[in-house]
């Protein structure tokens, strides 16, 4: 061996077209063995497409792939898996009614005669779980576990198949900061056990923290590469490379809204709400008020009652105890899980929007096309063909469509649950300014997010939710103090602010005075 670095994956002039649209155009780069390689780029830049080619789900139109120096042509993910490649998708592919173990062994059964050897499988899985500190119960059903546990299930699946090259498509989009840290520890263990990691994200601070090398795609082409071995990546240059122009600055200026008396401001009120589902208490005496012209941020680990609040306010959940009042406000919702709750994948942009929009009873193709085009322009939705179904849009662009549909409705109450999940830098700025705009128009806004920065930047008020109740609320005064401190703190990052510490503790159920 005359070269020290070994190449795990080599992309050579990869081109992939959908119709006449180039999703990947002449992309060439290589991923070294035993490194963490980040792939970055705007929504619709072609990241997922490239990874799907590597995983054998798509076939490139031209160009070739080398795995460990060997020319490879995959016909299906089976071939890729056989070559030690594993992928955790942007949208998980798990069966809700199966347990963690059942999901993992599906298609990889260890058998004893014709029976599945569950004991042996469980042994292997539990060993993997402890080796990589996954902290996962393999006998729980997918529907019962958190999103981060579902992700761990996907990871365990790859480990069980002995994958060496692990692809993660936006794994941290659905994780809270604490979960993200845990995830990075797992990634660290993978690296030290000799695995190669390809990692897609929109969060630049993560990139600097864990990547060894970055590749940036823009409009299907490779536009920038940089090493980050010394953890000194210049994030300004990186973000310029991603968007290709200057990064838009957020306009988060809040207008003062004057209301005639405090009564007129009331939008939604939840009093002492108790809710049981499948005999498990989900809400335990929850109180929450939404006021017009105010962004109420909810912060908390996922699964502490956030979705139940949404279900009650939207009227989907009616079997609760306590007092819920809505004085006739219309409600818009950007849900946390866009594929399951937000959209009809088989419909076009226009068709997804017309479902909620007021219109005549007969719907013409022309109207739909017009809605699609207008939305795509106004919200910068990147599509290869305006008539294509939402399933063929990139994840971030799907999110923009749902966001567009809900904000255009001009409802009195706007619920945003993880509104920028999977959305790129500039689009995040755009969405943030739209949320502020809704507030300034006098809408009552409920903002649920696991991104603390997002919550601090937008909220007028932040409540921490823990175990089905509000554990504490912080008003505008505390938040503006915090923002001022933050400006000072920037120069010296070693100490955490008292407020974010306090919130962090409340999120896991520790009360401090």
């Amino acid at each position, binding site marked *: 061996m005359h070269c020290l670095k070994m190449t795990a994956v080599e992309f050579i002039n990869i081109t*992939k077209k*959908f*119709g006449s649209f180039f*999703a990947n155009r002449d992309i060439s780069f290589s991923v070294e063995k035993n490194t963490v390689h980040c792939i970055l780029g705007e929504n619709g830049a072609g990241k997922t*497409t490239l990874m799907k080619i590597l995983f054998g*789900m*798509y*076939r490139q139109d031209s160009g070739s792939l080398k795995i460990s120096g060997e020319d490879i042509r995959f016909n*299906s993910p089976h071939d890729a898996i056989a070559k030690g490649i594993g992928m955790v998708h942007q949208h998980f592919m798990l069966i809700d009614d199966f347990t963690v173990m059942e999901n993992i062994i599906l298609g990889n059964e260890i058998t004893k005669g014709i029976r599945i050897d569950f004991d042996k499988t469980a042994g292997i899985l539990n060993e993997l779980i402890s080796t990589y500190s996954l902290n996962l119960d393999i006998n729980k059903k997918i529907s019962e576990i958190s999103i981060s546990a579902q992700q761990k299930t996907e990871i365990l699946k790859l480990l069980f198949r002995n994958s060496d090259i692990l692809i993660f498509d936006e794994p941290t989009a659905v994780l809270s900061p604490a979960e993200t840290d845990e995830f990075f520890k797992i990634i660290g263990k993978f690296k030290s056990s000799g695995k190669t990691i390809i990692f897609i994200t929109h969060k630049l601070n993560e990139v600097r923290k864990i990547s060894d090398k970055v590749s940036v795609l823009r409009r299907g082409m490779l536009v920038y590469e940089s090493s980050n071995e010394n953890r000194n990546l210049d994030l300004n240059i990186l973000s310029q490379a991603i968007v290709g122009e200057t990064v838009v600055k957020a306009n988060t200026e809040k207008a003062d809204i004057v209301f005639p008396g405090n009564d007129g401001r009331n939008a939604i009120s939840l009093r002492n709400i108790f809710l049981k589902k499948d005999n498990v208490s989900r809400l335990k005496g929850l109180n929450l008020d939404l006021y017009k012209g105010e962004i109420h941020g909810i912060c908390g680990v996922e699964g502490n009652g956030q979705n139940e609040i949404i279900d009650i306010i*939207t009227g*989907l959940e009616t079997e609760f105890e306590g007092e819920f009042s809505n004085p006739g406000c219309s409600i818009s*919702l950007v*849900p946390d899980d866009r594929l*399951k*709750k*937000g*959209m*009809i*994948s*088989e*419909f*076009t942009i226009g*068709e997804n929007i*017309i*479902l*909620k929009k007021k*219109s*005549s*009873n*007969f*719907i*013409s193709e022309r109207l739909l096309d017009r809605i699609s085009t207008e939305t795509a322009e106004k919200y910068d939705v990147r599509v290869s063909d305006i*008539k294509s179904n939402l399933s*063929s849009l990139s994840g971030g662009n799907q999110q923009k469509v749902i966001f567009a549909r809900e904000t255009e409705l001009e409802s009195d109450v706007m619920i945003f649950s993880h509104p920028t999940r999977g959305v790129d830098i500039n689009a995040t700025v755009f969405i943030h300014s739209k949320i502020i705009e809704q507030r300034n128009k006098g809408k009552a806004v409920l903002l649920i997010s696991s991104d603390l920065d997002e919550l601090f930047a937008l909220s007028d008020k932040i409540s921490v939710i823990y175990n089905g109740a509000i554990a504490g609320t912080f008003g505008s005064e505390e938040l503006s103090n915090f923002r001022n401190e933050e400006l000072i703190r920037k120069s010296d990052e070693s100490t955490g602010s008292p407020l974010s510490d306090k919130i962090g503790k409340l999120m896991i159920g520790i009360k401090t005075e």
Partner: protein
Amino acid sequence: MNTKFRINLISISLSLISTLLIVFVFLLILNKNPFEIFSVIFTEVFASGYGIGQTLFKATPLIICGCGLAVCFHASLFNIGAEGQLNAGSFVIALVALKAGSLPFPILFILCIVCGFVVSGITGIIPAYIKIKKGVSEVITTIMLNFIILALVNYFLVDFFAVKATMHTEKIADSNMLMKFSDIFPFFEGSSLNMSFVIALLLAFASYIFIYKTKFGYKLRAAGFNETASRYIGININKVILLSFFTGAGITSLAGINYIFGYKGFYEMGFSSNVGFTAIAVALLARNNPLGIIFSSLLFAVLDYGGLSVNQLVPKEIMLVVQGIIILSILAVDRIVKSYFEKRGIA
């Protein structure tokens, strides 16, 4: 939409071709001459106005019933109960046509359609209601309802309405019968093809508009594709289930018009000869597109009438086998074609 349509067309053509090949081999194994049999079918069906007329006549109830099922299937409601639903409605159509026979024909005809539609629709609301209230799968309830409804119709027919020693009602007045095609076009001489066929075509177009071009149609399909998302989007799923079951089942009742107003003039037990079940395959083959259903109904009608015409050469049941093979190959070929295009990122 356009590429999807093309992919569907490819998939459907391939499954028909593979069916043809399988049947070909099958006939060889039975030691028959496939060419002879195919040519007999072809000449019997297409060489005379009578053959063409009979084929269109047989296609008529399939088109109607297929459209009704398409409405349910688009909402992901697997209605297996069309056979019962259409018998209930048709029975009522015949009764109304008899009792109100003195009304002017257009009024009588519309009254019959409305009554039949409502009665069939109500038989569709039963499984819808049980599904909404108790979460019982409509597959089970609609299958069971077939038996119940047919038994009830049988009871009322035999005990109250049937002509003695027969299984049919009295005949409606000749003046109330629909016009036969052969009355205008001597080409169709002898065949039973009547104006019901035109009604079926109009119905197919109306169903197409209803499913693909109206707001409710969009909601119905959205609920069929993704129920949870539809709920969050604000679609009233219960309303969709009730309305699509009512409309879908209601439409199936019109299948009786062909027989009652166009052919025999009375309702007869067993007149539908499993149209309610065959129409499931008809709708599936057409991907639940009402315009496609016109063509798949014609295909099944060719098989049906063709089967009769080769009765001497092979058992008539062979056409049932062919229908079965078509369904299986649709399902198999569709998967293969879809995954082929998915890999290329076209689907």
